[in-house]
């Protein structure tokens, strides 16, 4: 990223957002580690893990907002990229278990031992090295997105058709990963991780570090997204979103643009998944479920599509609500609330929280400005009149 791209991408809202995330990323781990347990301001470890999960969801939401909010591509299969990134990380964590598995097999993960697998499948090679796994976290979702996007965008599959086939894609992957023969642990997925880069995944310090890393990833992801959308490429994306064929007639290769953001977005989702897995402790095919991807889209809608900050905020708000409402007496009504949220947001809050706030802010600014220049001439004079 060149410096001018960085400066260009930071407006006031973006800066505030970055500062808040950075502050959380530093303060929460510090409070957890340094303050005595049980003190009023100490953040309990389970909350660190919980918020770490929210931050990963926020990254996923950013990824979705980049393509949906700015380029009009509604992917109902982004959970697939998230899950693939998660699996890549999960495979690394599985290999790290080594002889500490219940069967003590130094190479094979437990689920392979008890299903009588004799040797490690080829696609598990290399995952014992962190750098390789980290590369795969980006590469596998990116490659899938590239191939899928290359086919779909070149044939101009757009709008709801694209949404439906992305759903088919994640559904097919769901079925595939459920299959035990596939070699990813079937329905049980990958779990019982021990350590990451030599640190115990369950230690408070590791959790705090993972949380801080997730915040860092959110910051980087946000900066990348901002850099993209505030460049000229961002204007082209919006042009594609608003009038695709017009953009084409101006000589832009629309499919290349779509492919670019789709792939970037998939890689981001993969990173989110990779950070999510060690914090949650399990990756299983249900992450591929179409419902999950649709839910992720609603986070973006709640926060405000096309605002980036809103997407991240939406992910946190909705997931916080989910945590809150799935406990206690309200538990049976959680689905009612989630469903109602989908409906109300689309009907009453089409711009989402941040979008609406922005619009309100802008209009109140305008009013103030208008009040101060009330005597000025209307600027409609120069406009040609419309013939009806």
């Amino acid at each position, binding site marked *: 990223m060149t410096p001018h791209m960085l400066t260009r991408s930071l407006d006031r809202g973006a800066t505030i957002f970055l500062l808040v995330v950075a502050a959380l990323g530093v303060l929460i781990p510090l409070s957890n580690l340094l303050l005595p347990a049980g003190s009023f301001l100490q953040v309990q470890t389970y909350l660190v893990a919980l918020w770490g999960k929210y931050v990963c969801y926020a990254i996923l939401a950013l990824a979705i907002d980049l393509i949906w909010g700015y380029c009009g591509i509604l992917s109902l299969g982004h959970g697939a990229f998230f899950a693939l990134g998660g699996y890549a990380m999960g495979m690394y964590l599985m290999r790290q278990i080594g002889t500490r598995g219940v069967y003590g097999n130094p190479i094979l993960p437990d689920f392979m031992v008890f299903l009588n697998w004799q040797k490690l499948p080829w696609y598990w090679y290399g995952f014992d090295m962190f750098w390789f796994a980290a590369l795969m976290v980006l590469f596998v979702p990116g490659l899938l997105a590239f191939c899928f996007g290359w086919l779909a965008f070149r044939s101009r599959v757009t709008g709801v058709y694209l949404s439906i086939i992305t759903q088919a894609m994640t559904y097919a992957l769901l079925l595939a990963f459920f299959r035990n023969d596939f070699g990813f642990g079937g329905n049980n997925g990958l779990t019982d991780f021990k350590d990451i880069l030599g640190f115990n995944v369950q230690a408070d310090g590791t959790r705090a570090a993972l949380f801080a890393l997730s915040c860092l990833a959110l910051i980087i992801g946000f900066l990348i997204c901002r850099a993209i959308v505030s460049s000229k490429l961002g204007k082209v994306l*919006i042009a594609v979103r608003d*009038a695709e064929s*017009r953009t084409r*007639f101006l*000589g832009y290769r629309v499919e*290349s643009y779509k492919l670019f953001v789709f792939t970037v977005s998939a890689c981001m989702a993969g990173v989110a998944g990779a950070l999510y897995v060690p914090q949650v402790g399990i990756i299983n095919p249900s992450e591929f479920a179409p419902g999950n991807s649709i839910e992720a889209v609603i986070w973006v809608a709640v926060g405000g599509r096309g605002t980036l900050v809103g997407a991240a905020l939406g992910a946190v708000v909705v997931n916080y609500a989910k945590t809150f409402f799935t406990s206690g007496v309200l538990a049976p009504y959680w689905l009612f609330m989630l469903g109602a949220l989908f409906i109300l947001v689309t009907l009453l809050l089409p711009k989402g929280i941040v979008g609406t706030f922005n619009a309100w802010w802008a209009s109140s600014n305008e009013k103030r400005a208008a009040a101060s220049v009330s005597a000025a001439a209307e600027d409609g004079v120069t406009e040609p009149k419309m013939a009806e």
Partner: protein
Amino acid sequence: MNVMDTRATSAMLYLDGVHVSFDGFHAINNLSLTLEPGEMRAIIGPNGAGKTTMMDIITGKTKPDEGTVLFDGVTDLTRLDETRIAELGIGRKFQKPTVFESQTVQDNLLLALNVDHSVRGTLFWRGSRAESERIDKVLETIRLTEARNRLAGSLSHGQKQWLEIGMLLAQDPKLLLVDEPVAGMTDVETHLTAELLKEINKTHTVMVVEHDMTFVRELGVKVTCLHEGTVLAEGTIDQVSSNERVIEVYLGR
């Protein structure tokens, strides 16, 4: 099929024997048309005559079932897609004004400039003085300098028409296809638009589709009348408007 001449045609645009049908409906039927470099041509014809479909064919949106479409004498347009055709230098204004409504007037023009259109190029783009000067010039031409920072969606209908023409100018194509530029404009605006097009024609080849006969007359150029996907008459406005068939199917008695 046509046997192609060994020598390339001198025409800017050359259509010969073009057919296209949608589910059995012949939208374009053995259409042949030639546009010389530097020429401005007005296309008239009743609804469903195939005017817009013809533009779709030229710009690559629709592929003809058969026939030849050559650009600049050599390039076979039927094999290319919209982007490639736009890159070759064919610009198009749509029947319904199509601008990027959620972006400013200035950004609309910036997007239209014929500079590097690759993903890389736009990602690492930094504005240059030359570019902003060109945008300023176009803004002046289309009388939208005052509105440069307004969102295109907030413009009036006529302003959007002009902005779209402005985008064509920024694109600086060799051939401009202009579909109903004065629909919904006042008489004054119509007149100004005609002036603008004539100005543009000094440096570009232009094809204008229009219903407004006053406007067509004001352009004062060669007219082609289409009917049921084929050329009904061609000539000056007076020749065409006195043609029996044209009067019967289009102008009315």
